[in-house]
């Protein structure tokens, strides 16, 4: 993942070998970037994330939390 200005411009696509799957990962090095900068929703190409119910503590580390930060600019 690379960051340009306030936008994340590339997200690595990870093929995981499962039947119909494609998986993309925002890697661990990117976490500080997500926490400190806004990112383009278009780059991530998702608007939200569905998953098993997270605790308030786990939310902080979630992709949804990164998407929510788009609103703080």
């Amino acid at each position: 993942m690379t960051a340009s200005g306030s936008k994340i411009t590339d997200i690595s696509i990870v093929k995981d070998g499962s039947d119909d799957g494609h998986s993309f990962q925002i890697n661990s090095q990117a976490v500080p970037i997500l926490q400190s900068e806004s990112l383009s929703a278009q780059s991530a190409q998702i608007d939200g994330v569905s998953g098993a119910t997270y605790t308030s503590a786990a939310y902080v580390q979630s992709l949804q939390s990164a998407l929510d930060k788009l609103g703080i600019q």
Partner: protein
Amino acid sequence: MTTATECPQALACEPIRRAESVMGTVASFDIRPGPVPPGLVYLALAEARARLHRADAVFSLWKTQSPMSRLRRGEIRLEDAPVELSEVLRQCEAARAASHGWFDPWAMPGGVDPTGLVKGWAAQQALDVLQLAGVPAAMVNAGGDVAVSGQPEPGRPWRIGVRDPWHAKRVIAVVSTSGAIATSGTYERGEHLLDPHTGRPSSPIASATVTGPDLGLADALATGVAAAGEAGLDWFGDLDGYEVLIVRHDGSRRRTPGFPSAA
């Protein structure tokens, strides 16, 4: 803004995102106000947030004095409880039938427990408030259970990722949806899903994701499938508009033919 949506007040047309701590998790809002005046949007958002907190106050089993807790202890009768309680329990009955008994709040230890449906139901209520206010597009994500309305941009549906059970920062599928999407699994909290028929822990699959028109039912069905496993795929032939994606413990998946995976 370059969208086709009329946007008389530029600021109002920017997405409004809020994260609300409620029900032991976080509810995320993404609102696309379109031409709706900011005052009206924020009023609707306040009401939507209040609905979530109201659901928490009424249904929480952590709060010993909540109406749901008091009903379980037999301290109040259903007819004396807040009206939402009857409504949610009615929906629980429908979900129990739809899941062939695998979602069964009445089989939980300690008394009736509608938790598996309440969060989805509450988020759907919050979204309905925004829709009634005329907001053209919105998303409410209650801790991983998502309800959407409209389109975030003209001609583009909402795109919702399904979390990879083994990696919090990965998604294993992207779903284009105009309704609801709920996921159940034990990977976040490590809690046990119970087989309502035996009362024993049951986690035959890593996760179950259900899409459909209503988030309350989708939430309950996801809970049921997560306990039932792949047998749950068979329920969906009779459930108009609902589809399911299962992730097995080895990472492979199965889904109903109509599951709305996006490219």
